[in-house]
């Protein structure tokens, strides 16, 4: 192999994980190649739509100011839906967005963001080759020494798989086990264009401010939920479903999602908008327990969602920030010069990635409670219905009303207590 064909590190995938890793390595003078199958970085990537800013600061302090982000999230909303009724909780806290400080999170469009981020890594000296799919790894005496793409081979001291949720490459190498249709979600999403002013009026936002809205009870009982994020001049509206349950339910996920658009609480938010894109993507849903046993073998490391670093905890999804953090950890391990495998695990702990994922591990149990996706939104809807129905007739007491609703929905006291305990324990 000639010097021309060899790099210090080859990274597969220019998503947030791969690019953050490349940026950090290139900045330290490493000779890095990133190979991305999309025509541009980001052109294959779909997300829900919010990004926790701290992660970019970890890559380079202040870098976020230059980033192509959409709106800073100032309004956190959760909506519970049942039929045509809905209950929305709206939380806002100015402390998350103090004047002159880095806002906590932004809404984000990945085709735009990833391309910007990759250009920044390029400025640091990383080589980004787009429009090239890595077909497989090169293995010599049990060690990964390079990658194959088309008819070409390219070698490196270390290959890093940052190839995302499906991670065909890390799976082939035996690091990442096969995905299960019970522990992933398929997300479908539309980008709906609306003028900035309309978005600001409908969501009560000032210019530059944004809302994040998560919905429960819009998946016909299938484990999953809806999301809506306000971008500068569009809305990201989508729905996530667990495939095994969707299959058993028997109705096309596409149709269930289309119905969500027509829900009386959602339609007014997107009315008059123009859909300009339809996307779909998988996301892992197991959190900490989904992290593969081994994240490294001789010559190969896994980062980002390929390595299970994503948290879906019901009220928010975090994958982009964790991907970046893991990319930085891997880069630091390489730079440290010690044995990369153990160094990587050490860095993942230092950078607080593994501990923070472990801390919320219990949410998985909470989200496993099936009644969350249909029954409880129904119960909540029923109770509010009783509270707000004023007809002049003598109302039943609220307490009685609640029992009635629980009974109507076949929820026993025992189940309620059990779910309550399970829920409390899990958080």
């Amino acid at each position, binding site marked *: 192999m000639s010097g021309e064909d060899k790099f210090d590190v080859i990274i597969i995938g220019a998503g947030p994980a791969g690019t953050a890793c490349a940026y950090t390595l290139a900045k330290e003078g490493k000779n890095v190649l990133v190979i991305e199958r999309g025509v541009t970085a980001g052109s294959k990537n779909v997300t829900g739509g919010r990004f926790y800013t701290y992660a970019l600061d970890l890559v380079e302090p202040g870098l976020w100011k230059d980033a192509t982000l959409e709106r800073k999230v100032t309004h956190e909303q959760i909506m519970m839906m049942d039929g045509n009724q809905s209950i929305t909780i709206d939380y806002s806290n100015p402390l998350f967005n103090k004047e002159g400080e880095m806002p906590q999170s932004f809404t984000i469009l990945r085709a735009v963001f990833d391309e910007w981020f990759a250009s920044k890594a390029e400025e640091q000296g990383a080589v980004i*080759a787009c*429009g090239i799919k890595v077909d497989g790894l090169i293995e010599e005496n049990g060690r990964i020494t390079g990658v194959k793409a*088309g008819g*070409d081979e390219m070698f490196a001291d270390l290959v890093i798989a940052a190839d995302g949720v499906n991670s065909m490459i890390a799976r082939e190498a035996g690091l990442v086990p096969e995905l299960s249709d019970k522990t992933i979600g398929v997300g479908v999403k539309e980008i709906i264009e609306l003028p900035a002013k309309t978005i600001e009026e409908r969501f009560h936002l000032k210019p530059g401010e944004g809302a994040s809205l998560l919905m429960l009870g819009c998946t016909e009982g299938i484990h999953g939920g809806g999301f809506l994020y306000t971008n500068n001049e569009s809305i990201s509206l989508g729905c996530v479903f667990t495939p095994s349950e969707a299959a058993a339910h028997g109705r096309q996920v596409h149709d269930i999602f289309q119905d969500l658009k027509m829900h009386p609480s959602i339609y007014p938010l997107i009315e008059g908008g123009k859909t300009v894109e339809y996307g779909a993507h998988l996301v892992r849903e197991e959190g900490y327990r989904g992290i593969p046993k081994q994240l490294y073998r001789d010559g190969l490391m896994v980062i980002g969602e390929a390595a299970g670093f994503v948290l879906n905890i019901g009220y928010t999804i975090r994958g982009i920030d964790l991907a970046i953090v893991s990319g930085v950890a891997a880069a630091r391990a390489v730079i440290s010069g010690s044995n990369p495998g153990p160094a990587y695990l050490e860095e993942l702990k230092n950078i607080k990635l593994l501990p923070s994922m472990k801390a919320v591990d219990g949410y998985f149990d909470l989200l496993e409670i099936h009644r969350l996706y249909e029954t409880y939104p129904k119960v909540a809807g029923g109770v509010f219905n009783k509270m707000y129905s004023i007809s002049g007739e003598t109302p039943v007491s609220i307490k009685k009303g609640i029992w009635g609703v629980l009974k109507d929905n076949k929820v026993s006291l025992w189940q309620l207590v059990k779910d309550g305990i399970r829920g409390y324990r899990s958080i």
Partner: protein
Amino acid sequence: MSNVIVCFKWVKAEDDLRIDSSTLAVDLSKSKGKISDYDRNAIEAARIASEAAGSETVALTFGSADTKTALKDALSRGPKQAFWVNDVSAENADGFVTANMLAAAIRKIGSYSLIVCGEGAADTYAHQVGPRIGALLDIPVISFVKEMRIDGNRLYAVRKLEDSLEQVEADLPAVVTVLPEINPAPIPGLKAVLEGGKKPVTEFKIQDLDLEDGDTSRKTDVVSFKGCSMSRKKILINEGDAKERVTALVAALKKEGVL
């Protein structure tokens, strides 16, 4: 044999154009750039021709600052080096200005045996630049080329016309404008992409070129640029049984002159 120069254009991707249905205004702001489709075939044709003749392919473009990305792309398709006339006026230049720029750059590059252009650009499709370059350099031009071969100092080409093929020969140096069917445009592989990023690019400013007064002023002006929408007649034939409806349909089509 001396260099084969291939001219290419960086255009806005047409599938990103957005046309406002009521005003027909065209929004280009969301459009990404790409190498004009036929020019990709032209680059490959130039590569094949120069390889056969044992010479080098050189890429040449006239474009504004965002053409920078194009150079890497073009170079990953085979040319050994690229020349770039970098000026913002490229964004609304007509065939006259573009040909003046490219011809001046070609004179500057110096030796060449063949100049390859795409038959038309993906955006304007005006068929002007190749013939005009030929005129400026006072060399033969062969257009609508679907096959070509070089033997010594002679170029043999097949031109595709409406319903016939024409064989043409000319002495080199010459200009050819090629059709996409001349050869497929392969997608560059990993090594080609990496090499493309390392090959030399020479940038010219307009001042670097020997141009005469007036060479940079357009001869044509685009006055308006609008989307076109097809309006349908919306005729519904739904009366009678199948036979009657077919008869009515045939009659209606005849009336419109379709049949």
